[in-house]
């Protein structure tokens, strides 16, 4: 039986394993965490349909559980990768017929944007923190009160030379709008302000959701990036931005600041480049063989990519790439 090693047990890796298993190919998933699922485990509901993230993950998990000859190795990392062999951090060497890299991305560390006060001031949270609050079913200020005014800042760690992240993380705009709607549903009396540089609603139903946020939920959108956050005497936060559409500086006191943190290239990517001869893009994401005809293939035959390892992607796209990488790997093995 042919054997494919999948590095990364996120949604793309899991989907890839399912597809390969259904094609009668044995797979091993290498996951550095103690459990499969990856980042989606922290998400609450998915844009634009507000489908619970758990529902999507469960469906894939369910499919994976039924698949045969899938080995799952958690708590270890791949150190060196060749098409025929993967060396693990434990020193173990696994042989295979092909490798799919589905290592995903690393979340931007909001602390690097010091001026926004993440980790310094209370009630400055990231979009990921907020998802977890949603999952717990409670969004509260550290004082225990409910927020009356919330600012959501787009592009934290994306499109920013100052933190060397020139690329657009693509999903944050949509997430910001989704979270604004969720917050308004939770706190109808609260004012929610989204501060954006551009609103990029690239997918089906996204623009409609954006319009719904404005029309039905009265979410305020201000085109302008917050420059800095400071504490106020009454324990709130003061933010400054330019309302670029009026050409005037703007400031206001807020109770909570949500930073829509971007997707950074995976910290492991330079190791891949150094140890395995693969290539990183200037953004740090892995370079696929071809942007049109070889999206899930690496320049090295027998090594494939799936999901956000090559670029920021949403859940649907990552799942699709899982399938696409599996099909490409199967085809290559059987050649």
């Amino acid at each position, binding site marked *: 039986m042919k054997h494919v090693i999948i590095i990364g047990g996120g949604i793309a890796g899991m989907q890839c394993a399912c597809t390969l298993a259904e094609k009668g190919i044995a797979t091993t998933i290498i996951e550095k965490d103690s459990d499969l699922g990856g980042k989606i485990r922290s998400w609450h509901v998915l844009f634009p349909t507000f489908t619970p993230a758990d529902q999507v993950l469960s469906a894939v998990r369910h499919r994976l559980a039924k698949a045969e000859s899938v080995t799952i190795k958690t708590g270890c990392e791949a150190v060196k990768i060749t098409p025929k062999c993967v060396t693990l951090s434990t020193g173990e060497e696994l042989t295979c017929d092909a490798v799919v890299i589905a290592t995903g991305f690393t979340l931007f560390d909001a*602390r690097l944007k*010091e*001026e926004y006060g993440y*980790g*310094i*001031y209370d009630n400055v949270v990231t979009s990921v923190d907020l998802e977890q609050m949603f999952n717990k079913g409670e969004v509260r200020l550290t004082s225990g009160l409910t927020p009356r005014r919330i600012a959501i800042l787009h592009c934290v760690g994306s499109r920013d030379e100052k933190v060397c992240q020139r690329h657009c993380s693509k999903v944050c705009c949509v997430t910001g709008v989704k979270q604004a709607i969720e917050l308004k549903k939770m706190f109808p009396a609260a004012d929610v302000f989204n501060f954006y540089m551009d609103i990029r609603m690239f997918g089906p139903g996204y623009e409609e959701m954006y319009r719904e946020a404005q029309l039905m939920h009265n979410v305020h959108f201000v085109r302008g990036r917050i420059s*800095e956050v*400071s*504490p*106020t*005497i009454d324990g709130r936060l*003061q933010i400054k931005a330019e309302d670029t559409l009026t050409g005037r500086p703007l*400031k206001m006191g807020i109770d909570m600041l949500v930073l829509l943190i971007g997707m950074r290239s995976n910290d492991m990517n330079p190791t891949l480049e150094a140890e395995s001869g693969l290539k990183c893009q200037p953004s740090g994401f892995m370079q696929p063989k071809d942007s049109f005809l070889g999206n899930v293939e690496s320049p090295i035959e027998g090594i494939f990519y799936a999901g956000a390892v090559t670029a920021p992607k949403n859940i649907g796209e990552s799942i699709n790439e899982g399938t696409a990488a599996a099909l490409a790997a199967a085809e290559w093995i059987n050649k």
Partner: protein
Amino acid sequence: MKRSSWTDYQKDIADDNYYYARSCIRQNFFPGSEKVFLDILSKDLGRNIFDDPLHTSCTGIGYHSDVVPLETIMTVVARQFALMSEAGYENFTSSCITSFGIYTELLNTWEEFPETEERTRENLYKATGREFKIPKNLSHTSDVIFHHREEIARKAVRKLVNVHTGEPLRVVEHIGCHYAKIFPKKGVGGSEFPYVLAGMVESWGGEIVDYPERRHCCGFGFRNYLVQANRGYSVANSHKKLESMAPFKPDFIVCNCPGCTMFLDKWQYTIAEMEGTTYGQNGQGIPVLSYEEMAGLVLGYDPWVLGMQMHQVDVEPLLDKLGVEYDPSAKYLGRNGKYIGRPERAIVNSCSEDTLYKIRR
């Protein structure tokens, strides 16, 4: 506060043997400060510091007002370095934040564009026959005090604590734009959470106030202040800061930039006279101190020796809180007991009759 980010922005500060460059504004408006700095360094801390009578203004005010060209200021700065080398020093410390900013800027310029350094050497040689070495260490004088803050704390006769309540004094710090906003890595704590003054205040028992406009400019802005018609814009900046800090009821403001010290102090008078607004408690102004004065008070210097009678906003309420003993009637007497004149009464000062002293003429 959960911050520790200042530790990411550390710089090397020389421990001894400084070449001292004075500040145009500070030596005119706060002459006591520079004197006290030299005294603290040499007498209290036993360090070697050279106050060279040969050095000149860095011409930074002219530079930032677009009247001194870049080549000129480079040559002037090169001359200061040459004087330092000639005096046998390697560690340059300047009293002025703008000078500090300019030295930093030019050193970086020379590093990035070596041809400009070559030309400067040429110009300096042609003009004065001197040659210079790049200083081994460049610090602002506040860096130097920051560096010795723990030693000062050990020698301190008092803490920055309200003697009546035992509470730490609430201090607003203002570091000045040219300290770290241009080259954040060259200032202690960087530009977002600068620590140079905060470190002193915390070491000496005070409490730093973090208010929304903490990072905002005092409004000096050189050409903005120098042209009378633009002063409304200049004062509006101090106004914004004062409005923002007032609710926090600070006991005093401490600055490391001579310009900021002057403007935050004197604009309070202007605002009070124009709008009738005062920002301190009891309807007075908020006292504004230079960090040298703050260090001097901690070390037990007499406020009139520190030159605090030169302030626009009266410092007596602060001295009372600190429990500093002073002779009110000696306030306007100069070094040899000569009457130096006194300012007219103003809203920021005339809190009550008993602060108007009988002057021994």
